[in-house]
């Protein structure tokens, strides 16, 4: 998996850029339950009620990246679409590090890392207060790396799930696996970055009871999109793009981007 190397390279570049900017701490979420953390320890009687939607950081960089990256991903997808149709495996393989870099940038700049105090302490920043060390410190990079490791661990499971839902098993192995890797990078990586291995949070996500935000919206959108991507395959139009797994990947990307944007804006904080 060419995940780590290009990722660290690109993220280090971002670190420099990010450090150069004076950044303020994240804006607190309004609400009375502000002191409750999103990473409540497991074992409490009802830990799920406290999971709160993820706030995108309020830094100018974060806000720029938040809007720029979906556009960049769409552009990348459209740009590589013809190549993807003719040659799915190499195109998907080569796109992985780029998408990973995009997601890494997004996570580091826009999302609160798991266990990061900034995301938890929602105290209002006093005017003029500066956070020590800035937003992207070594700990967030480690979180990002950890999240990418978790993402690659999750990929085989996602592959298995795709096979169980009807992906070819004996043929197109690399097609399906790469598709699963893309889906994992899109839909799971931000969640790993935000929640780490917090089982209570994951239980809420797995039970579809988490509140909608960019990360969870992206997951739901990506999964539903990939699921709907199977719909046009049986049609007898005999188009090249009906081949496995173009429609699935297309659905995953479309669904993820839609879910991320809608989850971050229109449906933010809502639950199923």
């Amino acid at each position, binding site marked *: 998996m060419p995940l780590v190397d290009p990722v660290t390279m690109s993220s280090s570049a971002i670190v420099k850029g990010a450090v150069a900017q004076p950044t303020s701490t994240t804006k607190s979420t309004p609400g009375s339950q502000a002191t409750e953390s999103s990473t409540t320890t497991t074992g409490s009687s009802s830990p799920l009620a406290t999971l709160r939607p993820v706030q995108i950081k309020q830094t100018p960089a974060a806000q720029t990246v938040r809007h720029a990256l979906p556009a960049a991903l769409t552009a990348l997808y459209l740009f590589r679409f013809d190549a993807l149709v003719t040659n799915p495996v190499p195109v998907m393989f080569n796109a992985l590090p780029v998408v990973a870099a995009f997601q890494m940038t997004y996570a580091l700049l826009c999302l609160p890392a798991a266990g990061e105090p900034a995301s938890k302490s929602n105290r209002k920043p006093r005017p003029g207060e500066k956070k020590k060390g800035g937003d992207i410190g070594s700990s967030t990079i480690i979180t990002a790396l950890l999240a990418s490791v978790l993402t690659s661990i999750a990929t085989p499971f996602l592959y298995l799930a795709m096979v169980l839902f*009807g992906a070819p098993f004996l043929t197109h192995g690399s097609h399906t696996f790469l598709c699963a890797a893309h889906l994992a990078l899109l839909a799971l990586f931000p969640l790993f970055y935000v929640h780490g291995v917090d089982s209570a949070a994951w239980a809420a996500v797995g039970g579809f009871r988490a509140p909608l935000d960019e990360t969870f919206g992206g997951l739901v959108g990506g999964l539903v999109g990939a699921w709907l991507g*199977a719909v046009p395959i049986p049609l007898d139009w005999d188009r090249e793009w009906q081949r496995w797994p173009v429609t699935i990947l297309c659905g995953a990307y479309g669904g993820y981007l839609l879910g991320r944007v809608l989850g971050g804006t229109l449906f933010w904080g809502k639950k199923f």
Partner: protein
Amino acid sequence: MSFRRNGSLSSTLLLIVANVLIPVAIVIFATGFFPYKPLLPGLAEYEPLDGYGEPPEAPFDKLVFMVVDALRSDFVYTTNSGFKSTQSLIRHGAAIPFTAHATSPTVTMPRLKAITTGSVPSFLDVVLNIDEGDESSSLASQDTWLAQMKAKGTGKLVMYGDDTWLKLFPGTLDRADGTTSFFVADFTEVDHNVTRNIPGELRNDDWNTMILHYLGLDHIGHKGGPRSPHMVPKQREMDGIVSQIYKAIETQDHLKSTLFVLCGDHGMNDAGNHGASSPGETSPALLFISPKLKGLQTNQDSPLPDAEDFQFYSTVEQSDLAPTLAALLGFPIPKNNLGVLIPEFLSIWPKKADQAYLLHQNARQIQTVISAASGTKTFDGALTAESCASPSSDYEELACAWQGPSKIVMSARVGDDMNSQWALPVVTWLRKAQELMSGMASNYDMSRLILGQVTALLAVIFSLSTATKTVSPTRSLTPLLVISIAYSIMMFASSYVEEEQHFWYLATSTWFGYLTLRGFKRANTTFPAHLLLTAFPVLVSLRLLRAWNQTGQKHAGTPDIVKLFIEPHPHFLWLLVGLTYFWTHRQLVHSFHGRIPVPINYPVMTGLVLAAFTFKAAFTLEDAPELVVEFVKSSLLDFTRGASLIARARAVFVGLGLVAMAAMGFILWEMTGTGGNRKRSRPKRVPAEAITTLQHLYTILALTQSRTANIPLFLIFNLLYWFLSNEIDVLDGTGLSTVELAISSLLLQYASFFAMGGSNAISSVDLSNAYNGVSGFNVVLVGVLTYVGNWAGPVWWAFGTVVLLGKIWRRDQRQKRLGSGNDGKRGSDEKEEKAEAKQRLEEGPVSLFKTYVAVTTLFTAFSVAAVMAACTILRTHLFVWTVFSPKYLYCVAWSLGQHLVVNVGLSGLLYWLGSL
């Protein structure tokens, strides 16, 4: 209270009305969609045509008509064909080759009808082809070239081969020996039965028509596809017969004026199947062979290179055979013919007047058919120039177009000097008439289509209102509505109809994914344990189900579990089959445990299951001998050697009947005998277990009627059943509800149908088990056996659902007794649910069954309405007869057979027995 009673009563009434409307809608729509085609009765005579002399003299007086079933054009004409001597006949001009276009449905009976009458059989003939005993499909009262040859009185009619001919022509054939296409594994015996009669008949001179119909090549196709290693040897065998007959014609004096026709009734696709309209299926070969034909000097090239579209030499319609035979053998063209005299043969008659006579006869005869169809006398010459300037109908346009060709035949009649292409406009006109009359698009009865549609929509409305009344909370109907609406939309796309299985597989996986996901919330399981022990096995089962049999059109014949793992490893297959029977045996014994003493229980059940198993083994030995392993052959079959298949099957059926009667006896006995005192202490428990006996007995019937390779699927069904049953046993209020069970059942009924190899194509109807234990022909028996053979899985799930419904009822009773089990846990609709539970207790267990029927009725009404709408809107679509009409027939089977008879009728009976 009375108010609620009224509400429940009205919803029951609505449900009944909806279920009455469904069959009514189906019947009304069918009468408009499959219109009765008027047939001209009686035997044709030569039409009196002015200005001609006697009918021209025919060059032939005897006919040898050899049909090789599924003889695709390339089997004869290409380089890698086994028909070497036939190809040399083509080169020498003694054989004139064609590709005969066979219209869909490409199955034997409609094709033989087209070949013999020259007409295009109606779509309903496909159904009658399956229901072979139907007398109305007989051609005894229709005009065919067989009837004409018989009327000539110059000899007898003899037939050897496929007994479809005997069914089509009862009483017409003087000497016949029919062979039944029963086991497709039989490649040699079916053909040997034909061939052994040939030498004797070639010496006889008392016949004027000899029909030979070989089935072996079709069997090879069904079994191994067009590239089977048996294919070329079989072609050589057929080639040998062709040259044997040709030599006899050449040498023997009484055969010298014999026309020898070799043809296929249809072709086959790449998987070796037929029924639809792919180029391979619609392109059989057709050859006219006689030494006399050398005079035409056609001398075509042979062999030819492969052609993608299977079109070799010139292409004619299969129905063209009838008028061509009429001309060559000298009899009037059969009355309902829509064929066109093949123009290549015209030059046999040296005089132009004769040629004109033959064409004119052909045209006049088709004009009679058109007049009968249009109900007007369009060809009486009353048409004016004005009405031809803007013809009001297709018929009138055709009549106007006849004026040109009519002048040409008139001048040809008197022997005017004309160029060699003079006949072309006449033939073009005939082809145009043929095309118009073969298309049946104009024959729909629109008012009936709309009336049927409206009735179906009423059924949808009623079932919707009853479902919303019966089911609470109403939002639990959402998945059902999503399924119904998505399915309805899908019916309008031909490829989704062809590939319907994907819909059910994806929906089932998603639904069960949701059900298992829900289980994660429960406190009593850990995430990995639930994942490994519940979610994973369930989803893997569904994945295996999906991959078991490749079905649909697009990827028919591609590898699936049966082809990749089962067929190459028969030991593995028999291990799974043995396991399935063993498991059923165990369950059966268990369900009788405590009712009859063990010394009786064990031997009886073991005997029954062994009888069923040995029948299956013996049947497989005939049907697919390559699948039977030595162990099964030696240990089990030798044990019961000598018993015929029919006797074995009857033993199974009689045994099943007796045990079923015993089980019903127990149910009734336990009800009356213990009703007074013990019923209170063990309410509903014992009888509910007694109906599981009936469920397991049905499993044995289902196994008996299923293909051997499909039997392991019942193990998978059992696993899914176990999952559903466990989901019901959850007592914390999150267990499976009635609606959820009904949706699961609906999904599994459809998914299991497709998993067992079903599809929406007529050719996928599995008839291999339709005659188990039946010696003669019995429409009802064969119909029931065919239904169980194809819907074994869906019926299994319907009966399983009944048992599970009883389980839900008992769980709810227990939950009620436990009382406050789920108090305070539920959200907003708890009140509603409580009210529902209360109502349920008032109505008794019937309310559960009502909910189940409401769910299946809702979906059935939706599907019926959608299929009707699709058939109406797309009635001029290219695929209407190949995709949408078969879908309509399947929809009829699903809604009348599966929904009304099985899900409402039989399941209702079973549920009633269980709740006694």
